[in-house]
């Protein structure tokens, strides 16, 4: 926890706990903040509480104790609908609507927000180009006519369509084959720098965390055990970090041998 708390947090957790109706605690007094424009990666095993933390930000879940602040306001004070439309959301397998074309999927939030039709169409085109898909070719296709990587790109385009300041991503690239994932990681890194969004990514992929995060929050059994910069993370003695660093070293050496 040696990184100083950011000056102007867009998202802030203050001693947040979350329990299921059954009484099981999924999140124990978690506190952290995400500065405007940074990318926080929540890294941990399945069941560590990463997704729970993410869903507390757009109020798909509500805290049992403590509060989650988005742009300085508790999520419980926000109208949940306008809070969610304010935040882009990407989930594993993209969650695209199978009965909507790519165009309609991307246009979803702008249309819910009643943008004028011309602006919606221009925006869809812009978004498809942003994620590297040719609008001519893809706008009228259905999700089942796309590859996994293309679907994931459309998912990102859809989340960004209404120009939210915040982007939440739950295992966004988890379902992709390693080659496609690697490609998308690099593209997404470039996109991050260009867009300047505040992003929270949930993943169990350490390489993804190091590649995409400006900071990495390590989660275990419902607790946040530490927040590191990617460099700190690789140098730290956390078992997860040690393993990750070792893997990267091997990759690096393999690269140098050639």
């Amino acid at each position: 926890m040696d990184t100083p708390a950011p000056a102007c947090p867009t998202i802030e957790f203050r001693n947040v706990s979350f329990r299921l109706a059954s009484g099981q605690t999924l999140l124990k007094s978690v506190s952290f903040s995400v500065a405007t424009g940074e990318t926080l990666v929540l890294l941990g095993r399945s069941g560590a509480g990463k997704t729970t933390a993410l869903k507390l930000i757009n109020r798909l879940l509500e805290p049992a104790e403590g509060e989650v602040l988005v742009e300085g306001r508790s999520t419980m004070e926000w109208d949940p609908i306008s809070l969610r439309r304010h935040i882009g959301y990407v989930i594993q397998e993209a969650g695209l609507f199978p009965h909507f074309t790519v165009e309609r999927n991307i246009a979803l939030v702008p249309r819910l927000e009643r943008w004028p039709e011309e602006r919606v169409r221009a925006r869809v085109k812009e978004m498809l180009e942003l994620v590297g898909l040719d609008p001519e070719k893809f706008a009228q296709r259905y999700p089942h006519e796309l590859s996994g990587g293309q679907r994931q790109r459309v998912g990102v385009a859809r989340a960004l369509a209404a120009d939210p300041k915040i982007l939440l991503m739950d295992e966004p690239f988890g379902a992709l084959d390693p080659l496609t994932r690697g490609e998308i990681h690099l593209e997404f890194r470039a996109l991050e720098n260009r867009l300047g969004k505040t992003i929270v990514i949930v993943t169990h992929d350490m390489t993804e965390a190091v590649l995409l995060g400006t900071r990495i929050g390590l989660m275990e059994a419902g607790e946040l055990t530490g927040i590191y910069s990617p460099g700190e993370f690789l140098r730290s003695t956390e078992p997860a970090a040690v393993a990750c660093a070792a893997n990267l070293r091997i990759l690096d050496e393999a690269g140098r041998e050639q």
Partner: protein
Amino acid sequence: MSLAAFFWRHQGEILQSMAEHTWLVGVTILLAVAIGVPLGVLVARRPWLSKPILGSANIAETIPSLALFGFLLPVPWLGDRADRLAITALTLYALLPIIRNTAAGINGVDPGVREAARGMGMTERQILWQVELPLSLSTVLAGVRVATVLTVGIATIAAAVGAGGLGEFIFRGLAMVNDQLILAGAIPAAVLALAADFVLGVFERRLRPAR
């Protein structure tokens, strides 16, 4: 007299009975959809309501149809007119498959899709109309198809309370021990059932979402 000749001679009456029959079935299905789809949505949304609602519909299904017509006869407003009585009884039978399929269709929507819809800020109503119902349309329609075929058959019994339809021929034929009369009711009823099954089946396949 051959059956064909019999049909030819009585074509006016047969066609009229078919029209009556179709009307009974049509009104019944419209009512059953209007009641059954919202109930199905309710069952999917509030699991604790699923037992009472599906249970009641199930019980209605188990009452022998002739008895149900009899039970409803003394009910004030219902017993006044035969078609009213018949349509009420038929609707009770048609409800179960429609409720069950609507609930199954909605429960079958990919949870990821629903979560994405919620996460992007769609209201419950928008999720229902723009996501859940369109995605379960073919399953709902399969229920409507089962209900329709079922109703075409049971509607022949409506003639017992004087509601008309193709059952008239069947009951008259039974009373007069006349096979041709019975067939004059049974064959058109079978044709109606097959036609409804076919047409609704085509729609159902058209509306099935691609995966």
